[in-house]
């Protein structure tokens, strides 16, 4: 268990308005972590700090030397009219220096293999808009996996996809994690997603709690994270959150 990324005393935000305060967080090799919290709590800011696309206003972000990251963006943020095929999109993941614009035979093989692994090999020549939400998610996963990352970061990987796809994505990520890849994702879905992950970080402007779902999914922690009283039931050994008072608050 070596530290891939370490945030120490980090305060960060946009235009001098801090979104996150005094964050200490370590991402270690092989872990599988969900960042949960309400909208505007700083989930995406935390993700951007980990990615290195946002510099902290205070504190330090330490990155293990030679760490390879891959990032799967939220489907909603993508320009689906952009003229690229699935193949072209996945190939973007190979950013290491190759002089020629066109793919080598080796790169073609790598793309074909990763598409095969994700079950979308037959969609290689399609335009990205012609894909379903689940297929689009797989395409971005393929692009990320092509980088052979030690750490995979995903922003809301299950928003905008149906229940079956959510299940598939969760399984796929579980497999990747068992193969040794560290995974960090953000999610607002406590029951469908977070409760199935081995490690959770609750965020609301700062880190409220960190630990396993059993440790973290408690009425006290949830109240501090979401600012609402939520009930927690046990079902088949897993915590289930009931949002009785304010429907939709968790879905935000």
């Amino acid at each position: 268990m070596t530290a891939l990324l370490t945030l120490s005393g980090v305060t960060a935000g946009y235009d001098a308005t801090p979104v996150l305060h005094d964050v200490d967080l370590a991402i270690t090799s092989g872990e599988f972590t969900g960042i949960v919290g309400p909208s505007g709590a700083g989930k995406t800011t935390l993700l951007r700090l980990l990615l290195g696309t946002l510099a902290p206003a205070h504190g330090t972000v330490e990155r293990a030397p030679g760490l390879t990251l891959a990032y799967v963006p939220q489907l909603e943020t993508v320009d689906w009219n952009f003229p690229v095929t699935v193949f072209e999109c996945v190939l973007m993941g190979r950013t290491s220096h190759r002089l020629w614009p066109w793919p080598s035979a080796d790169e073609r093989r790598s793309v074909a293999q990763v598409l095969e692994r994700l079950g979308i090999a037959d969609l290689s020549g399609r335009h990205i808009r012609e894909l379903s939400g689940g297929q689009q998610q797989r395409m971005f996963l393929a692009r990320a996996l092509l980088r052979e990352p030690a750490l995979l970061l995903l922003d809301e990987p299950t928003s905008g996809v149906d229940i079956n796809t959510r299940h598939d994505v969760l399984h796929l990520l579980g497999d990747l994690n068992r193969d040794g890849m560290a995974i960090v994702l953000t999610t607002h879905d406590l029951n469908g997603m977070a409760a199935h992950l081995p490690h959770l970080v609750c965020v609301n402007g700062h880190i409220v709690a960190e630990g396993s779902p059993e440790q973290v999914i408690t009425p006290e922690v949830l109240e501090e994270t979401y600012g609402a009283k939520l009930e927690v039931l046990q079902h088949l050994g897993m915590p289930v959150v009931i949002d009785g008072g304010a429907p939709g608050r968790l879905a935000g």
Partner: protein
Amino acid sequence: METLLEPLAFGFFQRGLLVATLSGALLGFIGVYIVLRGMSYIGHGLSHAIFGGYAATQLFAAQFYVLGAGLWGIASAIAITAVSRRSRLGADAAIGVVTTASFALGVALFSKFGSAGPSFDNALFGSILGITDSQILWLLAVIALTAVAVFFRYRALLFTTFDPDVAQASGIRVGRIEALLMVILSLSILVTLTVIGVTLVAAMLVIPAVIARMLTNTFGWMLALSTLVGTLCGLVGMYLSYYAGVPSGTMIVLVGATVFLIVLGMTGARGLRRTAGMDHPTADRSRVAA
């Protein structure tokens, strides 16, 4: 055949034809990146800004006007990018203020002191008269630079155009790639300005790229088609302008507009749908694909 060969007897037409065709190709090629980034308006603004730089420089050192206008253009481009990166909302306004003020300055200086180079009308709408060897060499140099830059940075340019955030997270130096693109754009406008004209350059950045987008869903093909369409517009427009006796830029743009209408007729709603969101980079991003 006669019609095609007759004007070629004139040296000025040969030069004009060469420059117009190469300009069409260059603007068609680079226009793909500009249009897909929703930066058409920046192209429009830059050509006007460069006009101001040109008018100002020729007052002090007429022989260096290309250099002066080029530096002015690159400075405007970098300023615009810096502003638009900080706040997307302010970009349109920044372009509007910076570039139209620069253009107004150019017009004022032109009217007051006259021009050492092309006349006012020629500068605005394009002319093939008085094209010098050095202009042709400049154009060839910029084409070579653009080809080399895109060839070696093809994937980084594509990635940053498609999704700058993920590109940056994947280790691409997005800021540098964007600066490179802005330098190429400024230089491309600068060297094509004489033939196409200040007010019409932006059209040649946009029209071929939009036509190509309507015809293909593949990025590589879009680059090739847009370059081809730009080349043809330059070539055909040049001949038509000779016979119609109108400024070269106007005919080149009108040919482009005609091709656009033909392609629109062929592809119909499907073609139009493909161009959705190209006027504004964020306009279509709130929608998830069905």
